[in-house]
C-alpha cells in the first residue's frame, strides 16, 4: 500500500458533492473513482477492489440499507455513509448492517477523512493480527490485559475494560449503543441505556483529562460512542452539526 495510492469510490448523485469530495480525497493522495447510482456503484466495486467506499444515502435508485447489504454480502471494504440529520434510526441500522461509520451532512472534509482513515486502519489491524491499540494518549494492551493513559496504568473493572475494548476494536468509528449493551450486559438489556450512560461516565473519570469535556471517549449523538482517533485534527473540521 506504500507504493500504490489508496483508492476510493465516491457514490453520490450530486455532481457538486462528488467534485468537492474528489478534490478533498485527491489532495490527501487518494486515487478517486465516482459512481452516480447504487447500481453503478455495485458494478464498479465488483470490477475493481477499492480501499474505501463512501455512499450517499439519498441515491435515486437504491435505499441505503440495500446498498450496504449488497456490498457487505461479498466485500469487507471500509464503508462510510453520508446521511442527513434526523435519520438516527437509519444510521444505527446501517451500522448494524456493516457500514463502518457515518458523517452527517453538511460535514467537513477532515471529519470524513478521520472516519475513513479509522476504518481503513482497522482493516490493516485485523489483517496483521495486531492486538494492542493506541488511541491518542490511551494504550490498550491485550496480553497481559492492561490500559494506560499517558504512560500511567489505570485500574478498570471488567465491564469498563470490556467497553473500552469494544470501542477500541472500532477505534475512530462509532459503535452503536445497542451493540455495546448487547456485548456488555447481554441481549436482555438492550433498553437499559442508563447502564451504559453511567458506565461511560465512570470510565471517562478514569481516562479523560477533563471528564466533563471528553476528548477520548466521545459521544456519537443518538447513535452511540466512539474512541476519538489520534490522527484526526478536530480543529480543522467543521463540527458535525449532527444530532
Amino acid at each position, binding site marked *: 500500500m506504500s507504493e500504490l495510492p489508496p483508492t476510493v469510490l465516491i457514490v453520490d448523485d*450530486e455532481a457538486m458533492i462528488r467534485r468537492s469530495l474528489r478534490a478533498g480525497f485527491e489532495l490527501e493522495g487518494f486515487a478517486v473513482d465516482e459512481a452516480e447510482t447504487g447500481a453503478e456503484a455495485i458494478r464498479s466495486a465488483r470490477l475493481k477492489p477499492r480501499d474505501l467506499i463512501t455512499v450517499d444515502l439519498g441515491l435515486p435508485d437504491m435505499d441505503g440499507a440495500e446498498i450496504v447489504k449488497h456490498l457487505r454480502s461479498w466485500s469487507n471494504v471500509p464503508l462510510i455513509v453520508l446521511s442527513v440529520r434526523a435519520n438516527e434510526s437509519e444510521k444505527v441500522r446501517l451500522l448494524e448492517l456493516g457500514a463502518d461509520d457515518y458523517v452527517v*451532512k*453538511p460535514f467537513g472534509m477532515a471529519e470524513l477523512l478521520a472516519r475513513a482513515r479509522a476504518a481503513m486502519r482497522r482493516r490493516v489491524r485485523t489483517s496483521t493480527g495486531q492486538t494492542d491499540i493506541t488511541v491518542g494518549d490511551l494504550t490498550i494492551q491485550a496480553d497481559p490485559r492492561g490500559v494506560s493513559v499517558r504512560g500511567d496504568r489505570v*485500574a478498570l473493572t471488567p465491564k469498563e475494560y470490556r467497553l473500552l475494548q469494544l470501542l477500541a476494536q472500532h477505534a475512530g468509528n462509532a459503535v452503536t449503543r445497542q451493540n455495546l449493551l448487547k456485548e456488555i450486559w447481554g441481549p436482555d438489556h438492550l433498553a437499559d441505556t442508563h*447502564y451504559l450512560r453511567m458506565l461511560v*461516565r465512570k470510565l471517562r473519570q478514569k481516562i479523560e483529562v477533563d471528564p466533563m469535556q471528553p476528548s477520548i471517549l466521545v459521544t456519537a449523538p443518538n447513535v452511540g460512542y466512539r474512541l476519538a482517533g489520534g490522527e484526526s485534527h478536530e480543529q480543522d473540521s467543521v463540527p458535525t452539526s449532527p444530532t
Partner: protein
Amino acid sequence: MVAALTLVAALSLFLLVVAPIFNLERVTIFFLVPILVSATRWGTVGALACSIGGVASLAFFFYPPRFSFYVADPDHIVNLILFVGIALLTSHLAGSLKRQAAELSRREKETRELYQLSRHLALAHSASEIYEAVQNHLTSSLHRKVMLFRSETDAKARGDSCVDPGIPELIRRGISAMPPGGGHDSRDTIMDTASGTSWLVRPISPTKAEFGVIAVDLGTKKSSEIEAMKRQIESVLAYVETTLNHLNVDRAIREAELRAETDRLREALIGSVSHELRSPLTSILCSASILRAVPALAADTRLAGLVDAIRQEAERHNNDIQNLLDASRISSRGVKPEYEWCDPTDIVNAATERVRLRYSDRHLKMNLQGDVPLLFVDSMLTEQALMQVIDNAAKYSSSDSTIEITTQAGDDKVRLVIKDQGAGLTEAEKAGMWNQFFRGHRHTLSSAGSGLGLWVAHAFVTANGGTIQAASEGEGRGTTVSIEFPLVRRPEEGLMQFEDASHE
C-alpha cells in the same frame, strides 16, 4: 323410513300378543300412534311408509281371514280407507308443525344475534368498533370468513399487500378495484376462483363509498344457501349503514383521510426541501473545509478569514434550515419525543460544540456538575433546544463576552442555566420572546433572524416535560435562561447490581 316400518312391525307383534289376552277388538286405532310419531320425527315420507305398513299389517294379521291380505268384511274395508285418510292428514299436520317450530327457533337465534349486534353497535364509540362488532357478528353467525375494509384506501392497502394469505389473489384484486363512487355498482359480486370457492364482495353502503367494503368467503355452498346468506348479510348491513350514518362516520373518515394525505404531502415536501437546500450546503462546507486545510491559504490570515466566513455563514444557513424544518414539524403534527436515558453532560457538550464554531470569538464557560443525574428525555430535541438558547445568547452579545453554561442537580430536577453578558431583555421582550416569529424591536434592524429559534426551543423543552424561563435585569445587562427537567426516577441505584466492583 326403515325406522318407521320397524315401529309398525314392533306394534304389530305387540298387538298379536296382547290383543288375544285382553280380547281387543278395535286394533285399528293403535296404528295411528306410529304414524304420528313418524310424522313428527321423519316428516311426510315416514308417515306414508307407516300408514302403508299399517294397512298391510292390519289386513294380514288382524282382519279375517287372518294371514291373508284379503279383507272379507266391508266394515273393515271402510275402516282401512278411513285409516289411510286420517294418516295422511295427521302426517301433513305434524310435518308442517315441525317446520314451523324449526323456523321459529332459527328466527329466534337470528333475533338474538341481531340484538347482540345492536347492543354492540349502540356501545360503539368509533367507527372501528362498529366494524369490529359487525365483523365478529357476521363471522360467528355465518361461520364463514368475513372481512370489512373501512375505506377505499384501507381496502386498497389491505387488498394490495397480502395481509391474509387466505384471501385468493383474484378476490384481493376485486376488493381493491371496488368502485370509488360506491353507487355505480352496488350489486354483489361473486367470483369463482381457482379453488372453486365463491366470495361476496360489495360496498357496505350502496350510496356511500366511504363506509368501505365487505368481503365474505361463501365457500362451496349451494346457490340456495348462498342466497340465504346474502339475505342475512343484507339485513345486517342495512342496520350497520343506519348506525354509521347516525354517527356521522363518513365525514370523520373523509377528514381523517384528508389529514393523512396532507401529512404525507407535507412530509414529502419537507424531505425534498431539506435535501435540495442541504446538498449545496454540503458541497460549500466540504469545499471550504478543504480550502481551510491547504497550507498556502492557512498562512494568509485574510484568506483564511474569508474561508472561515464561508464556513460560518454556511453553518448559520444550515441552522436556519433546521429551524424551519423543526417549526413545520411542531405546527404540523406536534412533537413526539422518543424518550431515553441521556447524560446532560453529553447534551450540553453536543449543543455547545455546534455553536462554538459559528461564534468562535465568544468565550463559552462550562460549569458542569460531575454527578448530575441522567435525564429521561428525547436527546435530539433537548440538544436542539439548548443549542437554540446558546445560539441566541451568542447572537445578542458582543464578541469577547462570556457565556456561562451550568448544570445543577436538585432533589427532583435537573437545571441547565445559560447566562450571557449580552443585550438583556426589556419587559416586552420577556413577555413575547417564546412566541413564534417574535423579534425584539431593538434587534430587527441590526440583526437577521426568523423569530423561530426560541419558539422551537420552548416547544421542544415543553414536549419533554421541562420548563424554560428567562430572567434579565434589564437592557444591556445580560440574560439568564433556565431550563428545568423533572427527574422521573434516579436510575443510578439500579445500576449498582450490574456493575461489579472488583478491579483487575
